[in-house]
């Protein structure tokens, strides 16, 4: 077992939960990052791009605030560049087809008691775990 970040995990998780509740209460929107981003990246034009862009800029700024007041962002990237490109493509395609990611399905969808989100969350977690298992314990 690796040492979990217990305090940071709970506090950070609660902040993410509060943030998702505020976006629903104030803006009436689901805090699903892939969906919010998806409205900016599309072959169709979305009229409501402004709040989406504000959200993306805010997301980066929040991490910037952490960097400014607390310290360097904890970021350890083991994958090489070609792997990251493949991973990015799959994450982009998958979240679009599957209508959501960890935040939209995992944090918000489960809170809405959505069967679709429960199914999606179980599948992407299982596939993520299977991928890591193959890479770390079978191929290497």
């Amino acid at each position, binding site marked *: 077992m690796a040492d979990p970040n217990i305090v940071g995990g709970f506090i950070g998780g609660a902040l993410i939960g509060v943030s998702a509740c505020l976006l629903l209460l104030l*803006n009436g929107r689901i805090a699903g990052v892939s969906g919010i981003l998806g409205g900016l990246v*599309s072959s169709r034009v979305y009229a409501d791009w402004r709040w989406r862009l504000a959200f993306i800029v805010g997301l980066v*700024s929040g991490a910037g605030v952490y960097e400014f007041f607390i310290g360097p962002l904890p970021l350890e990237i083991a994958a090489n*560049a070609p792997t990251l490109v493949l*991973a990015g493509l799959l994450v982009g395609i998958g979240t679009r087809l599957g209508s959501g990611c960890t935040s939209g399905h995992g944090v918000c969808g489960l809170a809405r008691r959505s069967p679709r989100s429960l199914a999606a969350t179980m599948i992407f977690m299982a596939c993520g775990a299977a991928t890591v298992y193959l890479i770390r314990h079978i191929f290497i």
Partner: protein
Amino acid sequence: MSHLLSSFCIAALFGFGLSISEMINPARVLGFLDVGGEWDATLLLVMIGALSVTVPLFPMILRRAAPVLEDQFALPVKSKIDARLLLGAAIFGIGWGLGGFCPGPALAGLASASPNVFLFVAAMLAGQWLASRVERP
């Protein structure tokens, strides 16, 4: 205007939460997914922390006739578990397991100015765009 300001501030809180919980760190995420190795419970704790807020509060918020700053709630309309959902979730999961990045942490991670994060985000945008071309309205 106020809905843009709230969107920005709420997302900043989200990005800060991703940072302080270390979910921005692919090593933490891969540690959680590595059930056959040195399993890292942090992501589970983050999910518990987030769900302990959203699970009780979402139904209360959704009892309102409308959100505070908009005329109506914009909620997902699909309810059927179809092949598209399952296939998409599987593809996303494989990509997540390869890099340790999902969309929120990857975007927030841009604040680090790491070229590798930009590379991942560029590929993710390309993937979203490609998939959007096969979308039916």
